[in-house]
């Protein structure tokens, strides 16, 4: 029997498949924003406990990703981008993936409670539940606003980090939550402008599929214009210093410029790019850099 006809389930999954179930590429931003929440908190936390708190946030996000892959295995098999994931490719059984995700979710919350406090553990549990039940199960296949509301799930890490350090939640972590919340739609919609074919085949109602590309371009611009003033609120209220304020202003201006390019790049009447979606690709890449630099500036501002 040749290698290509090996029964994949019988052979069992590679160790890397179990890691792939955690969506490691998505975890980078989660870990970073969670760590920023810990760093900017105005109290001392034992460095070892801080590392464990970040680990818990990472495991929780990975667990939510694994449960998401279990639930979405039918549409993952249809989409080219996700067809090689461990479940649709037949390397991990759906039941095993679900058990793995649930186990890791419980483990992360228990560890967080042991290492830090109940507020952080409860917030972590809520973030997992929000991603699984509100985004994955309820919104993703029902409404083009899935990213808008579901984006809240990805906005929890700085709040959890802050809660792990202080034991409570105040205005600054809520503002950081709001920043990620309003950053998520332009970030994902920029991606969906050039990757919506997959979603269309799978019947996922992403904004370009349901409302069209022209409408999506307008929404990206509108959300970016809402985002920039929100990023300035921490500085205006005196919760952060000048370094953050200047960074928010400069980075925000550049983000608006990218959104402007997306809105006015050469396109046909339906909003389909005549320039191979160059502006949308650039905006998507910049949006990631934007969040890293903005939150990095927040941490630098606090540490100096």
């Amino acid at each position, binding site marked *: *029997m040749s*290698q290509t006809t*090996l029964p994949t389930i*019988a*052979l*069992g*999954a*590679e*160790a*890397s498949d*179990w*890691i792939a179930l955690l969506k490691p590429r998505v975890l980078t931003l989660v870990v970073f924003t969670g760590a920023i929440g810990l760093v900017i908190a105005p109290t001392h936390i*034992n460095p*070892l*406990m801080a590392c*464990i708190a970040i*680990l818990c946030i990472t495991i929780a996000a990975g667990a939510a990703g694994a449960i998401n892959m279990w639930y979405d295995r039918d549409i993952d098999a249809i989409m080219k981008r996700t067809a090689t994931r461990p479940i649709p490719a037949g390397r991990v059984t759906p039941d095993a993936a679900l058990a793995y995700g649930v186990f890791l979710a419980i*483990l992360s919350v228990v*560890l967080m409670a*042991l*290492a830090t406090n109940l507020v952080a553990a409860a917030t972590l549990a809520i973030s997992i539940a929000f991603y699984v039940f509100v985004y994955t199960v309820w919104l993703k296949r029902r409404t083009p606003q899935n990213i808008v509301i579901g984006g809240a799930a990805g906005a929890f890490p700085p709040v959890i980090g802050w809660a792990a350090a202080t034991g409570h939640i105040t205005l600054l972590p809520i503002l950081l939550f709001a920043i990620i919340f309003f950053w998520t739609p332009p970030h994902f919609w920029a991606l969906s402008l050039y990757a919506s074919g997959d979603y269309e085949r799978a019947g996922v109602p992403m904004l370009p599929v349901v409302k069209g590309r022209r409408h999506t371009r307008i929404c990206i611009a509108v959300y970016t214009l809402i985002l920039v003033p929100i990023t300035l609120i921490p500085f205006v209220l005196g919760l952060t210093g000048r370094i953050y304020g200047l960074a928010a202003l400069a980075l925000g201006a550049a983000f608006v410029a990218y959104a402007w390019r997306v809105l006015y790049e050469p396109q046909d009447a339906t909003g389909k790019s005549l320039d191979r979606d160059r502006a949308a690709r650039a905006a998507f890449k910049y949006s990631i850099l934007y969040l890293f630099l903005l939150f990095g500036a927040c941490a630098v501002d606090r540490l100096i």
Partner: protein
Amino acid sequence: MPLDPMPKTVAVPSGWSAEMQTEYKRRRRGRNLLLLAALAGFCIIIYAIAIVKLHEYGQMW
């Protein structure tokens, strides 16, 4: 009475080619190592939490 020794070879389903058996063993070894690392990490974390809590607060809860 002497204990049964650990098996020297990994049991694989019968009827598989040498190529499949090698692949099966490689994957199983990788999974076992990952599980070992996860369990060791978990033990170290719990141990570390206990030490830090007892040192800083004098109690676990």
